């Protein structure tokens, strides 16, 4: 894998930006070039949020992912907005607990993950984003398992260190899903 452009999209408050950050840090631990770019604006909890993560062996050109190789999507408006932007042959990973709609396109691979339900049933409410990240890791192998864990450790500030284990568990559930 040389280049991978991922777009994470969903509601504000789902941890969309954080998922991207963990991926970005993991890629950094892997020794890759990378960029992380959030949508920004008059955003609010419950509004839409998205972030672009680019990983490459070469310097990153445009950090804005217009045509993602992988779309990780956690709400319906984002699926409707970005579905047609995914490159042919790309992957769409959908939180099917929240998005009750099938992807119309036939030229992409679609992965339905019951992420929010899986998280909730395992006492990890709010960690569906990490379940999705685990599945993204499984589908793309964008880094080694060790570096994914290091990326997670780097992304969690020291004062929130108690959240490390639950996030780890959620990622593992995503990999198993």
């Amino acid at each position, binding site marked *: 894998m040389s280049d991978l452009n991922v777009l994470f999209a969903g509601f504000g408050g789902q941890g969309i930006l954080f998922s991207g950050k963990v991926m970005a840090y993991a890629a950094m631990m892997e020794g890759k070039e*990378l960029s992380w770019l959030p949508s*920004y604006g008059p955003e609010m909890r419950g509004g839409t949020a998205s972030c672009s993560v680019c990983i490459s062996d070469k310097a990153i*050109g*445009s950090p804005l992912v217009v045509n993602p190789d992988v779309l990780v999507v956690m709400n319906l408006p984002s699926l409707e907005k970005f579905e047609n932007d995914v490159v042919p042959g790309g992957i769409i990973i959908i939180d099917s607990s929240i998005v009750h709609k099938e992807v119309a396109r036939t030229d992409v691979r679609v992965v339905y993950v019951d992420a929010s339900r899986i998280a909730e049933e395992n006492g990890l409410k709010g960690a569906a984003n990490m379940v999705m990240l685990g599945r993204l890791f499984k589908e793309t192998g964008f880094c080694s398992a060790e570096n994914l864990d290091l990326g997670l450790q780097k992304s969690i500030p020291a004062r929130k260190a108690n959240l490390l284990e639950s996030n780890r568990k959620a990622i593992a559930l995503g990999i198993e899903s």
Partner: protein
Amino acid sequence: MNEKVLMKGNEAIAEAAIAAGCRHFFGYPITPQTEVAAYMSKRMPKIGGVYLQAESEVASINMVLGAGAAGVRVMTSTSSPGISLMAEGISYIAGSDVPCLIVNVQRGGPGLGGIQPSQADYFQATKSTAHGDFHMLVFAPSTVQETVDMIAMAFDLGDKYRMPTMVLSDGMLGQMMEPVVLPEPREPDNDSKDWAISGHKGKREHNVVNSLYINPQELETLVKARFEKYAEIKENHQIAEEYLADDADIIIVAYGSSSRVSRSAIDAARKQGIKVGMIRPITLWPFPEKAIEKHVGHAKAFLSVEMSMGQMVEDVRLVVNGRAPVEFYGRTGGVIPTPNEVLEQIVRINGGVQ
């Protein structure tokens, strides 16, 4: 060497300034720049520095003038409308030969405009910041690491030439995160500024920092001396980076965020066999004329790509001076051009040159 970390462009600006010995920050919040001030407000009190949120941009820049005149390393940061408010103060700073760093994380304009990334302040930064004959050194980073490296360079050159310097970023570079290695911190060096009004306990003649000169001859002499300094800077401090330019038929000229979009477009065009390259101005003033001039002979066309209606393109045309066509492509108002849009322009121009 410091550890590689992921940082937002805006936070990296603040940390790099602190590492370069800056202990005085005056500013006023504005999107998409506010993380600079927020970061400074957390860090400065812990290291014996000053963070002050002024009542406005006008007040901020005058505080910068005061601190700079006292000989300390000082900065402010804002976004486009904020620079307009600071214009008068920047002219006073230039007219007083006071070094300082001004960061502009550009957003769409004119007016309050929008909060998405833009490059429409090129004219303002390089030509018409405010009244009077003067220039600032203007640096345009294209990555978070380069932003960090430029902050130190901007402070050092500002001190060397006793003039205001600007780092011209934009909302995309400010908001994005990339890996960065911060430089080793330096202690502030304020003692070498023998012109500063820093108190002397009666041991020497007092210094004066001032921009008011009623006698026209005296003012002309001063301005002319300043322009000799500018000529020296033009000779010695033009910086540009070339990307696949040596064999290029088409040369894109782009800086900052639009250079990154262009780089993606160039890679795609090269795969189609189109000989296209780029000159990326790193200093916008002085404009890297020499880097462009070097390629005027073999390049069949130039294309300026900007997030504006076409500003830097005028400087490219001044250098090329009719010897090759200079075209323009831009998006404005906070819209970021896509690599595909730039690729279309490359393909179109390539059709014309064959």
